[in-house]
């Protein structure tokens, strides 16, 4: 083949492409094939043939298009749309409506296309998904082999190297060595023979970038290799590709043989007196063969084991000759640099990391798939903008980059730019491009263990630290996940991990400890939970919990056991089980955010079981039956004072009575209940229910002093109390610090709700009300305002619906009732004019991420606008009124009390604190959990065992036919009162399930706890 042939093929192909009206691209990347894209193609061919439409449509089978999650898919030109998640049955409609009538089948069109592609920049992947990888002419049509032609015609080898050097291209295999420099070193080396090797032994779990390039655009790799060979003076190249990639191998074989036939490989390429040929070497599945010296040994026919470097392969590589070994992606990038120039390439990316990088996005992310982004994009943009964030509203926990050699990056580093240096500094590595997103359901200790297990078994076994050290590291991790960790394990882990890192022979061993070191850095608390508290919050390490639901409950209520009782209709037993951990079943069944349901294993099948509604059945039954608890018969002599009669103080009081005390509870208000009474309106928690539950606790043996304000713990201690529990909640409202917020028309949300809950009549008839905030208080304030007959209720929140801290169901119910949301707005001034209130807002944008991984809102300049209101209610958060005790107790910056997290003891021995006073504004169930925990630690403080008298846990036997309930069934939803009825009164919105439905729900339980033994 001569240069003119190349031009002729390109022109012919481009002319032909215009002949067909439609071009339909079917994806035959590995991921789409496994979701049966080949069937889609067959159906399409069949349908078109049947309808004689073959000349109108050109079908192109391509490599990976990127959005693997949406496969199998079709891409159609000229409309440039994706049809996604197709089945064979969809094809006739596409042919009938689109091909025949020219109308787009809307229901199959991919909606997330723009957000998925917007921040991407396709350079290396520009052909993947757009050409037939098994057709060399398709590649030539897209300027294929023109870079090679340019190099052979216009550039000396030195010039090529200079161009690559100037472009700033660095190795895409992960270590980031400058490619041009590597070539230069090889060029300068004198030898009778040199080699070019393409490392296609991609082995990281979760990485499939190289695979996609090989499957989607194999000629780009061959062309890059040929250019490298020309630059360094090599005549022979090898592609070392793993046997697990049969499709990549097949396409490479086709590509090589086509290139040979077209005179683009072999002797006298393009008649330019340049010889170069490529052979495949198939890897037998050893991860370590991705290491360059091991890979070379493997090509030489030896066991794939690394050797010490130096000498580097550019000095002594394959058969002892100078060898350039680059990654697939690196070679595939080369032609773009040659064709577009080094300055074009170096204009993309950051100062030290140029160009684009492909990542394989997988794990807990909405849009999994293959993405190519400019270097310097932030991790947050990849995970949230391109990836669409974590699915099912779960909390994002970390991004794992670089596979087993990489590290886990926490939410606080989402603003980290993706480049070689930044990732390394953060304890991870760029790696070849695997990016696994982890959410709250991933245990970081288990994650580290998984990767170490992988590297341990993939270690080549020759060097001591990697072979033996990793095994010892694995053993430690393994015992931690099994609840057998020892307190000094973390020091050992860190020490051994660093030794393995520093003393191993090759990259495998040197980087294998990264998953441990980075999780120790960022997620040390999880290790400590496992070792010291025998807890795995993510509910992964099975030896540490009975069931995810109870493990997730802040009060550790034994959900799986009471659900099993309800299965059998044993409501009283279920109630008593609940009371072992939480004395407010009826209240919690109405207001708890039900963390348990979020973790329910059944949710992975169809829907989580309705735990809250199941609870309500037995809780209300117990209230009706008036089940009570006797005060202790023999009292312990120690006296305990409780400051604050909210859920935490009351729970503590109840469990103290069970431990044999008669505590004294001081409450400054007229009634007990704290925020449950004064913060939560009756349409969510009727006062009657609350009163009954509180009286059940008080009657169990609590002395209550109402309307009694305590302002010194030392005073209580001097009055003869042996221990004090401070549970004063968090009722001090935060302020916006903007103009006019002290105006009488601007109300404080907590204060507003308190007045209503105390029974005050406030009339908002015909008023326009603005509520500011996005939490539960804001939702309640808004919904109360509606019930007070306000004309319009708006809610302003500075972020979006996704970030709202309120429960999803609250937001939904509020909207149903007519609350209008003003997302991405923030009030900046409240001005009174006449009787009204002029509120000036600024529109907010979201940029970057805060330390918790939430989007950072920022005001958009010049976007101010005003709206008229009558009243504004501020609900932007509270903090504890801890100032009263500031001279006695240590207080954190955010106003909460400083306590030992395990005992809840404050800086004064014998004085404990818990609930919102320690947590900041949190949930009722967390406050309850604290109360129970503090009761136990107070008992221990006095020198007793701290054991509550509920006996050993007994698994509940069930007798119903479980199989019936294993088929897919949606959860039963409780009946809600009609909106019209709701907003005219404070009647309870949720009517609950019938007993029959509740038992049905309970029987959907998968009984995760069955037969389990748990380390405590």
């Amino acid at each position, binding site marked *: 083949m001569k240069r003119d042939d190349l031009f002729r093929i390109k022109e012919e192909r481009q002319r032909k492409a215009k002949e067909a009206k439609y071009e339909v691209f079917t994806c035959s990347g590995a991921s789409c094939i496994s979701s049966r894209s080949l069937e889609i193609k067959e159906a399409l061919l069949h349908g078109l043939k049947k309808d004689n439409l073959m000349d109108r449509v050109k079908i192109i089978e391509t490599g990976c298009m990127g959005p693997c999650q949406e496969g199998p898919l079709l891409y159609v030109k000229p409309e440039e749309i994706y049809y996604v998640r197709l089945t064979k049955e969809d094809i006739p409609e596409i042919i009938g409506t689109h091909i025949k009538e020219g109308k787009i089948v809307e229901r199959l069109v991919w909606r997330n296309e723009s957000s998925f592609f917007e921040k991407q920049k396709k350079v290396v992947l520009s052909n993947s998904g757009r050409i037939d990888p098994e057709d060399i002419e398709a590649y030539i049509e897209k300027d294929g082999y023109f870079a090679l032609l340019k190099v052979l015609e216009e550039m000396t080898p030195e010039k090529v190297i200079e161009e690559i050097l100037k472009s700033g291209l660095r190795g895409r295999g992960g270590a980031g060595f400058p490619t041009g420099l590597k070539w230069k070193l090889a060029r300068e080396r004198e030898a009778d023979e040199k080699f070019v090797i393409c490392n296609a032994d991609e082995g990281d779990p979760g990485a499939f970038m190289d695979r996609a390039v090989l499957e989607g655009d194999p000629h780009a790799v061959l062309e890059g290799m040929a250019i490298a060979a020309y630059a360094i003076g090599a005549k022979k190249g090898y592609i070392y590709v793993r046997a697990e990639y049969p499709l990549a191998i097949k396409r490479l074989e086709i590509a090589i043989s086509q290139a040979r036939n077209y005179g683009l490989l072999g002797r006298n390429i393009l008649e330019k007196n340049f010889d170069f040929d490529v052979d495949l070497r198939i890897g037998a599945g050893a991860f370590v063969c991705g290491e360059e010296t091991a890979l070379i040994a493997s090509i030489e026919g030896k066991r794939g084991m690394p*050797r*010490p470097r130096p000498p580097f392969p550019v000095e002594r590589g394959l058969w002892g000759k100078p060898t350039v070994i680059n990654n697939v992606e690196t070679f595939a990038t080369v032609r773009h640099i040659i064709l577009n120039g080094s300055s074009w390439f170096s204009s993309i990316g950051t100062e030290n990391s140029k160009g684009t990088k492909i990542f394989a996005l997988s794990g807990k992310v909405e849009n999994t798939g293959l993405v190519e982004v400019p270097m310097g994009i932030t991790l947050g943009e990849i995970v949230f903008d391109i990836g669409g964030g974590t699915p099912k509203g779960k909390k994002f926990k970390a991004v794992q980059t670089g596979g087993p050699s990489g590290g886990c990056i926490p939410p606080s580093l989402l603003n980290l730019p993706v480049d070689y240096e930044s990732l390394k500094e953060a304890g991870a590595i760029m790696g070849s491009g695997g990016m696994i997103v982890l959410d709250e359901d991933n245990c970081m200790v288990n994650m580290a263990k998984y990767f170490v297990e992988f590297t*341990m078994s*993939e270690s080549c076994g*020759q060097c001591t630290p990697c072979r*033996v050290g990793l095994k010892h590291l694995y053993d430690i991790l393994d015992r931690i996940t099994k609840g057998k960790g020892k307190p000094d394990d973390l020091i050992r882990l860190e020490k051994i991990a660093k*030794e393995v890192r520093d003393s191993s022979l090759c990259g495998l061993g040197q980087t294998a400890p990264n998953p441990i070191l980075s999780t120790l850095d960022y997620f040390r608390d999880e290790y400590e939970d496992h070792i010291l508290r025998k807890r795995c919050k993510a509910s992964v390490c099975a030896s540490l919990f009975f069931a995810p639901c109870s493990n997730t409950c802040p009060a550790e209520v034994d959900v799986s056991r009471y659900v099993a009782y309800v299965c059998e209709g044993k409501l009283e037993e279920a109630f008593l089980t609940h009371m072992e951990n939480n004395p407010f079943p009826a209240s919690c069944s109405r207001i708890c955010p039900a963390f348990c349901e979020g973790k329910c294993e059944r949710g992975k099948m169809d829907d989580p079981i309705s735990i809250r509604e199941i609870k309500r059945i037995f809780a209300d039954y117990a209230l009706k039956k008036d089940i009570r608890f006797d005060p202790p018969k023999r009292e312990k002599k120690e006296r305990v004072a409780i400051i604050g009669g909210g859920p935490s103080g009351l729970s503590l009081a109840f469990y103290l009575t069970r431990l044999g005390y008669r505590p004294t509870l001081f409450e400054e208000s007229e009634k007990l209940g704290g925020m449950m009474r004064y913060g939560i309106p009756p349409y969510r928690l009727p006062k009657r229910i609350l009163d009954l539950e509180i009286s059940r606790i008080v009657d169990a043996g609590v002395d209550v002093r109402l309307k009694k304000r305590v302002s010194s713990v030392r005073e209580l201690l001097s009055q003869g109390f042996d221990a004090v529990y401070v549970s004063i909640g968090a009722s001090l409202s935060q302020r916006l610090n903007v103009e006019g917020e002290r105006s009488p028309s601007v109300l404080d949300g907590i204060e507003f709700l308190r007045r209503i809950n105390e029974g005050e009549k406030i009339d908002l008839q015909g008023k326009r009300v603005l509520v500011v905030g996005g939490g539960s208080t804001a939702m309640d304030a808004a919904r109360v305002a509606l019930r007070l007959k306000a004309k319009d209720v708006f809610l302003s929140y500075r972020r979006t619906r996704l970030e709202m801290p309120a429960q999803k169901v609250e937001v939904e119910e509020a909207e149903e009732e007519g609350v209008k949301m003003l997302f991405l707005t923030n009030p900046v001034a409240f001005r009174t004019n006449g009787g009204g209130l002029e509120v000036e807002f600024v529109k907010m944008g979201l940029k970057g991420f805060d330390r918790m991984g939430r989007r950072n809102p920022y005001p958009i300049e010049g976007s101010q606008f005003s709206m008229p209101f009558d009243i504004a209610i501020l609900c932007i958060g509270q903090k504890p009124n801890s100032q009263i005790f500031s001279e006695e107790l240590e207080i954190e910056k955010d106003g909460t009390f400083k306590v030992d997290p395990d005992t809840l003891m404050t800086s004064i021995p014998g004085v404990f604190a818990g609930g919102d006073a320690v947590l900041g504004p949190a949930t009722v169930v967390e406050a309850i959990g604290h109360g129970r925990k503090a009761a136990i630690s107070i008992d221990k403080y006095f020198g007793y065992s701290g054991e509550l008298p509920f006996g050993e846990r007994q698994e509940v036997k069930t007798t119903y036919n479980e199989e019936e309930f294993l088929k897919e069934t949606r959860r039963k939803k409780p009946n809600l009162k009609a909106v019209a009825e709701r907003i005219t009164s404070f009647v309870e919105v949720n009517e609950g399930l019938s007993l029959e439905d509740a038992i049905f729900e309970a029987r959907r339980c998968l009984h995760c706890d069955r037969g389990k033994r748990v380390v405590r």
Partner: protein
Amino acid sequence: MEVEITIDGKKIKAQKNENLLRVAKKNGIYIPSLCYYEKISPTGVCRLCLVKVENMRGLVPACATFVTDGMKVIANDEELFELRRDILDMLLSEHNADCIACDKNGSCELQDLAYRFGLELKNRKFRPLWHELELRRDESSYVLSFDSSKCVKCQRCIKACYEIQGKGVLSFAKRGMETYLVAGFGTWKDSECDACGECVQACPVGAIVEKPVFERVRAIDVEKKVETTCPYCGVGCQIELWVKEGKIVKVRGLDEKPNNGSLCVKGRFGFSFVHSEERLKSPLLREGNQFKEIGWDEAIRIFVERIKEIKEKYGPESIAVLASAKITNEENYLLQKFTRVVLGTNNIDHCARL
């Protein structure tokens, strides 16, 4: 070319590209090592000889580092000591340290290192895990035994077989902790092994040991070591005989010319004949069906008489001579000269038929 380097502050002259570990050793600077074996290319896998070299990234194995002019090396400091001790500790955790019953007790390099680093049981960080691994013993060879639980994966045997003997019989199988030494595709017996024992001599521990010829024997049991020349052939390999209770119990190759420690299967293992009851100790004369012991002078006299008679009576072609590989080349030369010139026949042959 001579270069000057600094190790632990000490200025040292060395040859360019000399091996750093060897240079240190020569100059009395101790750097522990296990996988390093002078006769093979450096492997750099035990990681005990890691040192710090200015301007080189990370820690580098001294055994695989070549000295260059001005090189500054820290070979011993607290950090390195601790790291080496921990690595050694790791090695011990996968080592079946049943030293009491081990052939190498007293001459084991790992034992020496553990002793030097004070790694008695109570000081070990890592729990033993060798017994959790599959035990692979290979007793199939006639001359040696392999016990995987003692192997330290130093590759000295593998490389000795490949680089010194050019055989390449040995390699590793499996990966990670399960890595073990394998001969050929499975057993020593079915492999291409010639039983030269190069691996035995290279093994720093008791993983590959000789099969006892008379009885098991440890270096510390040996009463006397005799340096001598192997009697088997004309090469003249230098050997060391280990003698216990007046008996040769083991043969080691001496690191001298011409063999540099290497031996063949006969030289290393074929010494039991020395103490054989049936061994010929003096010439025997056959009388009828009986053999009679005679002296050398008499034997030579009888031989001369008889050979003369035969030659005269039947001619020189009636005589043939068979030479032996056990005598030297020079002696063999003389023998053929004697045959042709004195006996007058070309009927001479040699036992070597390889």
